[in-house]
């Protein structure tokens, strides 16, 4: 079953570098179209010849599975046996399924809180690394390490940390605090999953934002210093506006990734206690491959696709207000 999200990720990736007109001087403008409209057929064939392996991969591994999952969502489709056409029954069932709303709510909460915390932490660390801190490269590597470590391994380590008798509660006990059940108490479980997820992935955004900060011309900052601005004024009026394209890119990609959260609740809490950490993709996966309901899982996948597309579209629409592409 293909997740339509693959398409979402691709489209946003291609859309994300909505870069300003920054063509270097030595790059010539493209040639104007030839007069008389005569087409160069030879180039087209050459392009097609170079393109076909990638195009074939895109068609067979992205487009066909996408359409396949749309078709499957119209059937009651077991892993083994004959599928039965049910029309839009899977979509109707979805709207009367209370767990659907619960996992949607959990996922939205996760996505917004996780993205906000992730960006705030990544921005703070990037700003710190951009000062004349010693061993900045070393720290950057340290912060990036969790992002390149397998998610499952990280989640298992966090499970040991956060279990009832884990290191966190043992440390709290040593100073006289009776720690809660981080993973078994519904008041703390989702927060624990978010904390682990932020730790795992903020390092990637640190790299992107550090690169963005590095791209801010030193002369502008220098000039503002000479004008007597405070650090806060420089951050608010120069750094953040000039960093906004990078912030927009990290926000969009982090949000899309957040809606696909799966491994963290699967390893840390199994979606429990109750449904408190059950997320959209975990529910989708279980329906498809544990409960043997591929049709319903495909309908869920398409709903997730729609939700992510809407939120990404809103982000793109909103960027006009705060993203500044002027250099």
């Amino acid at each position, binding site marked *: 079953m293909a997740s339509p999200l693959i398409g979402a990720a691709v489209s946003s990736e291609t859309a994300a570098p909505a870069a300003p007109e920054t063509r270097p001087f030595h790059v010539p403008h493209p040639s104007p179209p030839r007069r008389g409209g005569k087409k160069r057929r030879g180039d087209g064939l*050459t392009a097609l010849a170079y393109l076909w392996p990638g195009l074939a991969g895109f068609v067979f591994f992205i487009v066909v599975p996408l359409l396949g999952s749309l078709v499957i969502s119209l059937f009651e489709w077991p892993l083994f046996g004959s599928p039965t056409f049910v029309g839009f029954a899977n979509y109707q069932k979805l709207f009367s399924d209370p767990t659907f709303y619960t996992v949607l709510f959990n996922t939205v909460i996760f996505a917004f809180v996780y993205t906000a915390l992730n960006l705030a932490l990544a921005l703070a660390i990037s700003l710190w690394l951009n000062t004349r801190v010693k061993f900045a490269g070393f720290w950057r590597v340290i912060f990036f390490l969790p992002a390149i470590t397998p998610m499952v391994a990280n989640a298992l380590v966090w499970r040991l940390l956060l279990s009832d008798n884990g290191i966190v509660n043992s440390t709290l006990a040593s100073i006289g605090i009776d720690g809660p059940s981080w993973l078994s108490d519904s008041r703390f479980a989702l927060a624990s999953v978010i904390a682990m997820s932020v730790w795992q992935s903020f390092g990637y955004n640190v790299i992107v934002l550090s690169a963005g900060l590095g791209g801010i011309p030193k002369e502008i900052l220098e000039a503002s210093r000479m004008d007597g601005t405070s650090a806060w004024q420089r951050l608010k009026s120069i750094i953040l506006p000039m960093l906004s394209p990078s912030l927009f890119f990290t926000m969009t990609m982090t949000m899309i990734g957040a809606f696909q959260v799966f491994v963290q609740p699967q390893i840390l809490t*199994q979606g429990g206690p109750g449904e408190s950490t*059950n997320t959209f993709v975990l529910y989708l996966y279980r329906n498809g491959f544990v*409960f043997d309901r591929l049709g319903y899982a495909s309908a869920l996948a398409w709903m997730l696709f729609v939700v992510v597309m809407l939120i990404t579209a809103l982000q793109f629409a909103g960027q006009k207000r705060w993203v500044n592409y002027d250099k």
Partner: protein
Amino acid sequence: MKPRSTRTAVRVGTALLMAGALAALAGCSGGSGGNASGGPITMYTWVSSQSDRDQWQGFIDLGKKVDPSLDVTIEGPSFNDYWTKVKTRLSGSNPPCLLTTQAARAQELSGLLMPLDDLIKKYKLDTSAFDSSMLKGMTVDGTIRAIPYDAEPIVLYYNKDAFTAAGLDLPSTTYTREQFLADAKKLTTADHKALAIAPGFFIPNAWAIADGAEAVKGGKLDLTNSKLVDQVQSYFDLVKKDGIAKAPEAADASDASQAAFTSGAVDMLIEGPWMYGTFADAAKFDLGVTIVPSTSGEAHGMTAGSGFGIAKNCKDPDGAFKAIVAMTDSSVLKGQAEKRGIVPSRADAQSAWAEGKSPEAYAAVQALLKNATAQLTTPTWNQVETLFTQYGVEGYRGDKTAKDVLNTIQNSVGQ
């Protein structure tokens, strides 16, 4: 040919060649698999480790002594992946003929497994020689879907040394809930619990069946019957009310509770008899085995076990059934009981399980098998297990009652 068109042709040719070479490189892995018609019979089963492979090979090697023409090859993924992959494997080309299933999964795999009743009649297999509860567990819609090779009643393991040190009498083949709780409370201290609990419905179900409560009635899920609700509540109470066990976490694997028991962190654990050898090797104390306690104190076992079935799309069901007959022969099951520690599904082979084990362990297993109920399930049992793992945590912590938890699951599964 003009120079321009020659250049174009060369460029197109080069591009096609390079792209073709890349595609060929990318696709050069893999090959055909499967068996030729008339060749060995493929058995698709779970092979999580070399130990699993050795177990299946043991059935084949011992089966060859019964039927020298037996020719079976083993293929399969890990245990956890098996239940999904078996469905896709049968949908693919050259599907396997022999499958294995647990009794608890027979309902779930009923769409894959061929009814065996006609073959049983044709080859005059005496099913009365097999444990009746296991045969019931392997029966779907009135037809037998697999021949069981083991019949393992869930038992209570205990630490004999801890019991003796606490001045407690060792339990025998009768054990009341009252006595169990009294013993457990005496073994429990501020930083030591008597019992280990794993998440999931498997053990609470065995606890409920010990007192005659069942989760499936007439093939339908019946989680909200008052008898079952009371039993599950009494199991939840072991944590919050009685304080003899720690609440499990939803993501705990069963090996967490097993490790707690064998390390001496707890003194008792409810598990299957297939763990006897592992526990005896790992524990640094004298291992005791008794029945799962019941109100009356009498033994009432929940049997779990697995068996061999035939895929619905098997082209040689006769050959596959002959292989099953050979691999479930009494001599084979005796050999596997001695070598692998399975409790054989054939009554006449069960004495072989006693080999190398304490007499009271064998007595407990015998007592439970005399009054045994299979772990009956429904096709949606995976949902029940998954949801109980999620919601059970709240039950143990006292945040929700058994009634709330079981009502939620019954409504979610919708049967």
